[in-house]
C-alpha cells in the first residue's frame, strides 16, 4: 500500500530523484560523529516550541490584567495545560543549552573556518535571536519574576551613551515596564522573532547544502584537500556514508536522548526553570529581593556587576560578542585539529571556564 502510494507520488513529482539526491545519495564523511546531529535536535526543539507556543496562545491572554490569571488557568484548570506550558518553558531553556553545545562543537572541531564563515555567522545570529525570543517570552506570564527580570534586562540599555534612556523607553513602550511592554514583547515573541528565526534557519541550511558538510578533524579523513578560493565548489564526500539511513539513525538516537533528558526535567524537576517569584503576580510597587536573570544571562549580569561603570561592562560584552561572531575572519589558519592548535585550545577552555565561573558567581552573588 505504502509502496503504491510512493510510486504514485514519484510518478508525479519525481520523489525518487529527491530521495536519491538528498537522502540516500547525500554522502557524509565516514568519520562524522554524534556532535553533527545537534543541528537536527535543534530543529526538533524549535518545531516543538512553535507547536507548544501555538497551543498556549489558545488560552493565554496578552493583557497585563489577565496574563498571570490566564497562565494560572492553563497550569491548573486546562487538561494537560501544565504539560504544554512546562514543555514550552523547559524547551526554551533546552534550546539555548543545545544551541551552545552545537556552537561549542563547531568551535572545537574548527568547522567555522573557511569556507563556512557564513554558517558560523548565521548560527551566531541565531543564538542571539533565540536568547531574544526567550527574553521576550519571559515577560509573558506577568509574574514578579517576569516583571522584574525584564525591568533589569531592559534597564541595562541605559548605559549606552546619548541614546540609552530613549532606547530603554522605546523598548518598554513607556518610562517603566507595564502593559505596553507586554504588548510589544508579545508581538516580538509570537510573530516577529519566530519568522526571523525560521528565515535564518532556512539560510543556515541553504548555506550548509551549498558548501557541503565539513569533515571532522578526528579519525580517518577521506578528503584532505584544502579549500581553494579561486572558484566555488561543493565539498563532496565520495565514498562517504549516506545520510539515509546511516546518519538519520544517529540523528534519531540523539533526538531520543534529548527527549529522555527533556521529559525527565518536565516530569521530575518541573520547577527547575522557575523561582518562587514566578508564582506571584507582577506588582510594580514591590521589588522582590535577589532578582536574577535566566541562567544563560547570568554571566552577562555578573560582568555588569563587576565593572565599576555599566558602559564599560556593556562594552566588554560587545567586544567579546563581536570577536566571537567574526572569529572565522580572525582565525584563518587551515589547521582544524584542536590538539594541533594549543593557543586556540587554551583560549577556548579558559573562555568556557570563565563563562561557567561568571555564571556560578552570578547565581550565588
Amino acid at each position, binding site marked *: 500500500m505504502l509502496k503504491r502510494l510512493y510510486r504514485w507520488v514519484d510518478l508525479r513529482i519525481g520523489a525518487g530523484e529527491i530521495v536519491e539526491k538528498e537522502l540516500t545519495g547525500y554522502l557524509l564523511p565516514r568519520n562524522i560523529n554524534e556532535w553533527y546531529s545537534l543541528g537536527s535536535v535543534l530543529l526538533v526543539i524549535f518545531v516543538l516550541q512553535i507547536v507548544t507556543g501555538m*497551543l498556549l496562545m*489558545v488560552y493565554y491572554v496578552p493583557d497585563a490584567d489577565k496574563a498571570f490569571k490566564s497562565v494560572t488557568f492553563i497550569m491548573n*484548570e*486546562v*487538561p*494537560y*495545560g501544565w*504539560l504544554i506550558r512546562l514543555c514550552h518553558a523547559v524547551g526554551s531553556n533546552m534550546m539555548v543549552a543545545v544551541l551552545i553545545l552545537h556552537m561549542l562543537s563547531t568551535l572545537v572541531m574548527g568547522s567555522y573556518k573557511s569556507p563556512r564563515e557564513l554558517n558560523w555567522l548565521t548560527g551566531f545570529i541565531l543564538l542571539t535571536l533565540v536568547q531574544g525570543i526567550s527574553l521576550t517570552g519571559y515577560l509573558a506570564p506577568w509574574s514578579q519574576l517576569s516583571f522584574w527580570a525584564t525591568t533589569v534586562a531592559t534597564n541595562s540599555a541605559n548605559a549606552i551613551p546619548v541614546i540609552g534612556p530613549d532606547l530603554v523607553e522605546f523598548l518598554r513602550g513607556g518610562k517603566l515596564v507595564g502593559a505596553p511592554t507586554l504588548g510589544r514583547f508579545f508581538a516580538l515573541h509570537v510573530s516577529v522573532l519566530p519568522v526571523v528565526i525560521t528565515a535564518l534557519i532556512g539560510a543556515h541550511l541553504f548555506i550548509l547544502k551549498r558548501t557541503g558538510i565539513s569533515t571532522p578533524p578526528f579519525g580517518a579523513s577521506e578528503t584532505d584537500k584544502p579549500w581553494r578560493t579561486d572558484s566555488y565548489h561543493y565539498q563532496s564526500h565520495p565514498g562517504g556514508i549516506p545520510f539515509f539511513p546511516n546518519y538519520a539513525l544517529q540523528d534519531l538516537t540523539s533526538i531520543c536522548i534529548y527527549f529522555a533528558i527533556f521529559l525527565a526535567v518536565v516530569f521530575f524537576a518541573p520547577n527547575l526553570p522557575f523561582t518562587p517569584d514566578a508564582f506571584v503576580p507582577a506588582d510594580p510597587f514591590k521589588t522582590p529581593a535577589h532578582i536574577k536573570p535566566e541562567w544563560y544571562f547570568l554571566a552577562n549580569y555578573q560582568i555588569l556587576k563587576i565593572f565599576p561603570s555599566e558602559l564599560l561592562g556593556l562594552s566588554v560584552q560587545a567586544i567579546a560578542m563581536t570577536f566571537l561572531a567574526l572569529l572565522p575572519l580572525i582565525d584563518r589558519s587551515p589547521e582544524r585539529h584542536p590538539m594541533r592548535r594549543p593557543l586556540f585550545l587554551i583560549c577556548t577552555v579558559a573562555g568556557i571556564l570563565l563563562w561557567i565561573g561568571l555564571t556560578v558567581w552570578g547565581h550565588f552573588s
Partner: protein
Amino acid sequence: MENDGRRKFLGVCLAGATAAAAVAAAYPVFRYLTPKSGQTGTGKLVLSASELPEGEAKFFEYAGASAVLVRTKTGELVALSAVCTHLGCIVQWVKEKQHFLCPCHAGLFSTDGTVLSGPPPKPLVKIPLTLTEGKITIG
C-alpha cells in the same frame, strides 16, 4: 532470510513504538483543546417574573448556548433556544409583529417556536420552565 525476519520484526517494533509515542503526544493535545464538559451542562436558571412585561422577550445564556424567554400578549411564558435551526444564527425578537426573525436568511418563527416561513427545517427547541411565586425556573 533470517536477517529479513529480524529486520521486519524490528521495523514492526519501531512502527509500534512510534505509533504509541504519537498517541501519547496527541492525547494531551486533544484533551487540552477539548472544551470543558461543565460549560455545556444543563443547570437550572431562575429569573424574576416581574423582569419580563407582556409582549417582551429576554435573551440569556443557557447550557452554553443562547436562549430566549418570551411573554406573549396573552400572558403565556415560553422559553426557547435562540439558535436558528437553519444555520445556527441567533434569532431576533420583532416586538411589533410578535415573532422571531433570523437575520441571516429571513427565517420566521412564531412565539412558540413554529416555523412560519423561510428555510429553517425545524421549529426552535423548547426549554421547559416552571413559574412559582413570581420566580421563573428555566431548565
